[in-house]
Structures are given as structure tokens and as C-alpha cells.
């Protein structure tokens, strides 16, 4: 749909000035709020059973970014979480590992030590998470420290204050600067996930604009929320963001991932999201490289559902870890 006037060539120009960026972002078509919510609700009623459910559960496990972002986190807790990430269900060797563990920057070293060699990535939040209220130098130092400790992925927060007051170029340049700070000495680069904090963006139109802004600035992933603000990830917001990544690929050929985070606690919620991914963005995104769930308690529910599928018995919280 949206970019009748935009070719990849035009997109290179949109960030030339604040005015051009504003013109572009406000030129994006508005989101039909009622339509988006109705479509999300309709897709949420799809019945996913038996073998499809088994596939969806395993895929969802592989997509989990197992997260602990509490002030009370300790090295011990991060080690326990990282061990769980590698072998989520020790009673079932067929259970796949999760995609990543997501921790605060100072605990990246601990997580990295534990998951080394397992293929599980370590993601670190950075840029004065969760508020993002610090000077650019502090944010960049935060990012560099995380990358230097071995983070494979960096989750940054955008400056919502700047975004909501319309200083789009400032947000754009900040993302670009963080992206540059993600570079490692060997020339490779940590993956950058841009947290939009959709719970603070007020409207779906803003979500669409913030998504495009983050993608134009070079983010590898757009992520809904920090998990510290309510509402966090909702299905209609995920739908709007998935439309944005789909349109962005059409316009530029570059694929960007989506990560809903916060508030997804049950396997049923996760499966609803997977249905929306498949229907809105397409099956290309049904892969841990392009779609993630930021969650902690979700994994236990997925494991209990897997056990039910495998044994026919409903499982209970006594049979999964407390974390």
C-alpha cells in the first residue's frame, strides 16, 4: 500500500532534514483503528490444534527472548536463566533452545559465559533502559559497554519525549549513533533492536511512524515495549508493526524483524501472535531470526502446553522452574 510516491531512491532522501522526515512520516497513511483492532481480534479466533499447535509451540519456544530485567537480578539468577534458555525442558531432549537471553548490560558477561557454544544469543538492553532519559554520550557508553562485554544483540529505547514532540530527526540520528556504537573491532556488528514503547505512543498512527523511523535509521528489529509500561505488547500494535515491516521490505528490499515484549504470558497469546505474523507479514517472518517474543513467564506456559501435547496430561506450575 503506502508508498506510491516512494522508491528506494526517495527513501534515501527522507532523512535529509527534519522537515523532510516529518513530511515523509506524516505522509504515511493513517491506521484505521477500528479496522486494525477488529482484524487482530478476528485473527485471534483462529483455531490452531494438534500438529499445527505442536509446530506453533516449538516455534514459539525457539522465538523466546528469555528476559530478566529487574533491579534485584543477580549473577546467580542470570546463570539459572541462561541454563534454562539452553535446555528449557530437561525432561524432553526434543525441546529446542530459546533464541536469546535478555539482561541488563552489567550481567552480559555472566550470561555469555553460561551460554557459550550453545547457539543461544545474549541480548542486552542499553541506552538508559527503560526510560531512555540520559544524555547521548551516556547512552552510547552504555551500548559500547554492552557490546564490549559480548552482547550479540542490543535493545535500545527511543527518546519518546523527542518523538512525541515531533523532533524526528533527533530520534533518527540517535538510532544511527547507537547503530554505529554497536560495531565491534573485528568489523562485525551487534544486532540492534529498537524499542518503540508503544504504550507511550498514544495512537496507532504514531506506532506506524515510529516503526518507519526506526527502520529508516537502520534498526534490525523493532520491538514494542520495555515491559515496564502498561499496556505493553497488544495484538493490534503487533499487527500495525508487522504491516510496517512488510511495507518496508516492499519499498526497500530490506527485511526487519519484530519483537513484541511484555504482557504475553500464555501459549494462547503467543499462538495468536504467530497467526498475525503469518497473515500480515507472511511466512518469511515465522523464524526466530525475524520474530521474537520478549517474555519470561511465557516460556513456562509453552512448556506446560508442550507436555500436555506429548503426554495428554495437563501439567502444572510444580513441574516448571520458578523464575
Amino acid at each position, binding site marked *: 500500500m503506502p508508498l506510491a510516491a516512494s522508491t528506494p531512491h526517495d527513501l534515501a532522501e527522507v532523512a535529509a532534514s527534519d522537515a523532510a522526515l516529518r513530511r515523509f512520516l506524516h505522509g504515511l497513511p493513517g491506521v484505521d483503528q477500528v479496522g486494525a483492532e477488529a482484524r487482530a481480534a478476528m485473527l485471534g479466533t483462529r483455531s490452531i490444534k494438534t500438529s499445527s499447535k505442536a509446530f506453533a509451540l516449538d516455534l514459539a519456544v525457539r522465538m523466546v527472548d528469555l528476559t530478566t530485567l529487574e533491579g534485584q537480578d543477580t549473577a546467580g539468577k542470570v546463570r539459572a536463566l541462561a541454563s534454562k534458555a539452553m535446555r528449557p525442558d530437561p525432561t524432553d531432549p526434543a525441546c529446542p533452545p530459546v533464541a536469546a537471553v535478555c539482561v541488563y548490560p552489567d550481567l552480559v558477561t555472566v550470561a555469555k559465559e553460561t551460554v557459550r557454544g550453545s547457539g543461544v544469543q545474549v541480548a542486552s538492553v542499553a541506552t538508559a533502559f527503560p526510560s531512555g532519559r540520559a544524555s547521548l554520550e551516556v547512552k552510547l557508553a552504555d551500548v559500547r559497554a554492552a557490546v564490549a562485554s559480548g552482547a550479540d544483540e542490543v535493545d535500545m529505547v527511543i527518546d519518546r519525549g523527542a518523538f512525541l514532540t515531533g523532533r524526528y530527526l533527533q530520534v533518527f540520528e540517535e538510532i544511527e549513533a547507537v547503530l554505529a556504537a554497536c560495531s565491534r573491532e573485528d568489523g562485525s556488528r551487534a544486532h540492534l533492536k529498537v524499542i518503540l514503547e508503544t504504550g507511550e505512543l498514544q495512537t496507532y498512527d504514531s506506532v506506524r511512524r515510529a516503526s518507519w523511523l526506526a527502520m529508516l535509521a537502520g534498526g534490525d528489529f523493532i520491538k514494542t515495549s520495555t515491559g515496564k509500561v502498561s499496556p505493553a505488547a497488544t495484538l493490534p500494535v503487533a499487527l500495525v508493526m508487522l504491516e510496517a515491516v512488510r511495507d518496508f521490505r516492499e519499498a526497500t528490499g530490506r527485511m526487519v524483524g519484530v519483537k513484541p515484549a511484555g504482557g504475553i504470558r500464555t501459549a494462547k497469546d503467543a499462538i495468536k501472535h504467530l497467526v498475525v505474523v503469518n497473515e500480515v507479514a507472511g511466512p518469511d517472518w515465522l523464524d526466530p531470526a525475524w520474530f521474537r517474543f520478549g517474555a519470561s513467564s511465557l516460556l513456562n506456559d509453552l512448556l506446560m502446553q508442550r507436555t500436555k501435547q506429548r503426554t*495428554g*496430561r*495437563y*501439567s*502444572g*506450575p*510444580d*513441574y516448571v522452574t520458578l523464575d
Partner: protein
Amino acid sequence: MTRIDVRKTYKLAIGGAFPRSESGRSYEVTDASGGFLANAAHASRKDARDAVVAARKAFPGWSARTAYNRGQVVYRVAEVLEGRRAQLAEEVQRAEGATRRVSEGLVDAAVDRLVWYAGWADKLAQVVGGTNPVAAPYFDFSVPEPTGVVGVLAPQESSLLGLVSVVAPAVVTGNTVVVAASVRRPLPAVTFAEVLATSDVPGGVVNVLTGLLTDTAPTLASHLDVNALDLTGALGDPDGATALEADAAENLKRVRRPAQDDWATDPGLDRMTWLLETKTVWHPIGT
């Protein structure tokens, strides 16, 4: 002028709410002589699972209350039940085909049973717990604690008194309950759930499922988050009861086998004590 009948819809009671069956199914309930009474919800496996989740969620709060407080709450249930005596007497009468006088007696007996169990709430620990004499410098004592979520198949014949007699002892000791009501006489159970909802029992402490046992009973028996299973309602089906007992063995649930109970007599402590786990504490003293 004639009024249009306002017929009551009998639903399930799960987590303090009264939902229809997730499956959308219902079945016809008839009175003792075969006449149509009402449609009741036919609970599915998923309803049973939801009820267990609700019961598990309610357990920490309910079991942490003081025994005295639980006694007060159960007494309050008796008060509210007394207030709905006429309605329940009529439902029991139509379900069981008894005379009016007999069914009123059954409701009174149910109220009395609740009062009796309410009184036991804060006295049971003194009877089944206590200090133990040990030959070492320890103060050693045992306290009873509730076992957890209890799945109950309510008696098939006694629709109210039997139901109260199996649910009250589980609840008063601090357990939370998922009860599958009598299959052919479920209506008093649903009304009793309304009594619970309008007294001070927190949502999820007693969850009532109606419908055939073919879906709900095996789910409760095999569910790993159910700690005990009362098979009283499987009395007429020994093979079925054995199969349920085998399912329950997977996670070592406490199982109460079906037996012929006489609901009119003094129940004794047995229905409370089988749902208690004894915690013994060795507290160092002296030296």
C-alpha cells in the same frame, strides 16, 4: 395479565464467575419422574482445566487465611443457605422426587453440616496436630496443612446434602475444590455455587462443573496440578473408578475410593483429615 416465564439458566461456576461451557454444549436435566426441568451446561475437558487453574490461583490466599477466619466464612455460607431454604428445598424436591417435608429436612441438614464443619475449622489442628515427645533437645511439633487442589466427584444421589458433605470438609481445612456435580441432579449444585458466590468465599475456592463425567473426571484424575481426588460420585461405576485411580497414580494424588456413605449420620473427622499433610518442625532448644 400473564407474565412471560423467566427461566433460570444453569451455568458452571469457575473462578468466581458463572460461565457457560467453553464448548457451548448443554444437556437436558429431568426431574425424578422424567419431566423436563432445565438445560444445564455440559462441561468440557477445557472447562475442567480452567477450573483447576482457578482453584490453584485461589489456593495461596485461601490456605493462608487463619483457621478461625475460614470457619467464619463457612458459617456465613450456612447463613446464606438458610436464607435460600425455600428455593433449594424446591430444587431438591424436584431433583430427588422426595416429599416437600423430606427435602426441607435435607436442606436443614445441609445447613447444619456447614455449621458443624465451620466449628471444626480452628479446632482440628489441636486434635490432629500437637507436640511430640522426642529424646533430644528439640521442641518438636506437628501441624496439619491443606494438601492443595482437590478434585471431587460429588455423590450422584444426594444432590445437596451429599454435595455439601464432600465440599465443606475440603474447604474448611484450607483446600480449594473443583467439584463435578451429580450428573442427573446438578441443579442444586449450581444454586449452591450461587450461595457461595454471595457469601464470603473467595472466587476459585469452590468451582462447580456440571455435565457427564466422561470428560471432566479423567481430566481431573490425570491433571498434574490436582493434589487429591475424591471418587465418591463414581460409586456406581467400579471400573471407571479404578481407571480414574490409575490415572491419579501418575503424580501420587491422594485418592478417596467410592464407598457407601450415609449422609444423615455424623460424618466424623475423616473427610477433613485425609486432605491434610502433616508438617513436623524440630526446633532446637537448650544447651
